[in-house]
């Protein structure tokens, strides 16, 4: 089953760019990617730029409305994701716990919809 690990983090809690803590966090991501390769887990993932670069859009009464920033006023924002192909939820949760941002926010683990049950 494929799982998406959505990385939500609170920018005020994350270490600031350039600090040794930031270096440690990035090192943690590097180590996580190496671990996935070593374990032969098929994976994909990206990090997102900050929410100050986000533009949100909705169609309201047939009219496109755009807005600067994310719609939801939450403290934790989507900052990146991984997609991992794994046998079960326990395995997915074990990997999710290795994502460095778990210490500064929340990792949401969601199975991907499978449109082709036979495939």
């Amino acid at each position, binding site marked *: 089953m494929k*799982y998406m690990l959505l990385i939500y983090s609170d920018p005020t809690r994350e270490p600031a760019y350039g600090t040794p803590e930031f270096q440690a966090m990035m090192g943690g991501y590097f180590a996580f990617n190496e671990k996935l390769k070593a374990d032969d887990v098929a994976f994909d993932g990206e990090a997102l730029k900050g929410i100050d670069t986000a533009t949100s859009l909705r169609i309201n009464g047939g009219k496109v409305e755009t807005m600067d920033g994310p719609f939801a006023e939450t403290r934790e924002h989507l900052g990146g994701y991984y997609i991992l192909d794994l*046998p*079960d*939820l*326990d395995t*997915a949760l*074990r990997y999710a716990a290795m994502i460095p941002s778990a210490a500064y926010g929340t990792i949401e683990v969601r*199975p991907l919809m499978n449109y082709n*049950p*036979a495939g």
Partner: protein
Amino acid sequence: MVRSKCGRLWNINLTPERCLEQLVREDRGRLMAALVSRLRDMQRAEDALQEAMASALVHWGRNGLPASPKAWLLQVAWRKALDRIRRGGTEQRGLADLLIRADEVQDAGEDIPDHRLRLIFTCCHPALEAKSRVALTLRTVCGLTTGQIAQVFLDAEPTMGQRLSRAKAKIAGAGIAYQVPGPEAWGERLHSVLTVVYLIFTAGYTAGPVDGRNLCEEAIFLVRLVNGLRPDEAEIEGALALLLITHSRRAARVDELGITVPLARQNRRRWDLRMLSEGRGWLDKAIARRASGPFQIKAAIASLASVESGPTDWPQIAGLYQGLLRWEPTPVVRLNLAVAMAEAGDLDRALDLLHLIGPDMQDYQPFHAAVADLLARSGQGQAAREAYDRAIAMATHSGDARFLIERRAALPD
């Protein structure tokens, strides 16, 4: 609780209805576990077992009981499940897998492997809501009906039905594996299982018997089952000890008028001494393994609190609560620590501690009862009366309320 094995003798004098009823009561968990292990889907397993039971009533009534009713039910449930999948038609690949596995399990005969440990760990998975874990365990492992579980939680039956369906759908949809966790997750997952068992046990005290099913006994059955399937685990033995020691006092917990009797004033002759000593035996075994844990500490506290004669060792109980804080740094444990400290003679420090946790505990009835008692002992009558009023207003058990009303009335003017 006696759970006799359905032996070969039973077809002599049991009607099909009685036989099925007994089988379902005693072996539903085992049959469910066997079906889920092959079908990998709890809802499908439950539907298939339901169909097989309906079919059993017809066939057994017409042709008499089969040689092994349990194996018969499993075979028929299995075939019903395959039929359903074939009719569904969309899951060709899944069907192929199932058929392959079906070949492997053919002629399993009467010897049904016991997969209930996997079933329990799945039902108690931390990815499910706590209440759903309790409900699902009662439904699938203990075989309570949805209606009975709804009664325990004071929920409407359809609401409970929806909760159970959601939990089963989450297990299937999120890919919660049907397996006993490996060593890396064992401790944490076992704790989740034992917590569910303990919640079932405490629900038994508040809900009382439901349709002849006593949840305290179901919880003891569950922890005995887990202990039998995974022996030599200190925390499992600790949980078994805790339940047995607590349950041994069941007959003395309320008096003839239904009023709750505190431990110190309980009639020792009404304690079940055999159960108490069995519980202490398990506790000794657990402690000898030198792998401490919260359930063992709670069992040790329960054991010390259940002195048959002479004074209670409150300083040691306070020390154990202090130790428990390392595992569970919660206000509830601090509340119990405060009560033990007061009993040990340190009333001032106990009141300080209650004051400290007060803000977190306003909605917790036992907190107000403890505050009332400690204030009364320290001679603060008016403050004690106010605390009793809060505790009485919040009591969920009428016996508790009546006990508190008596205590309030006994305060000096």
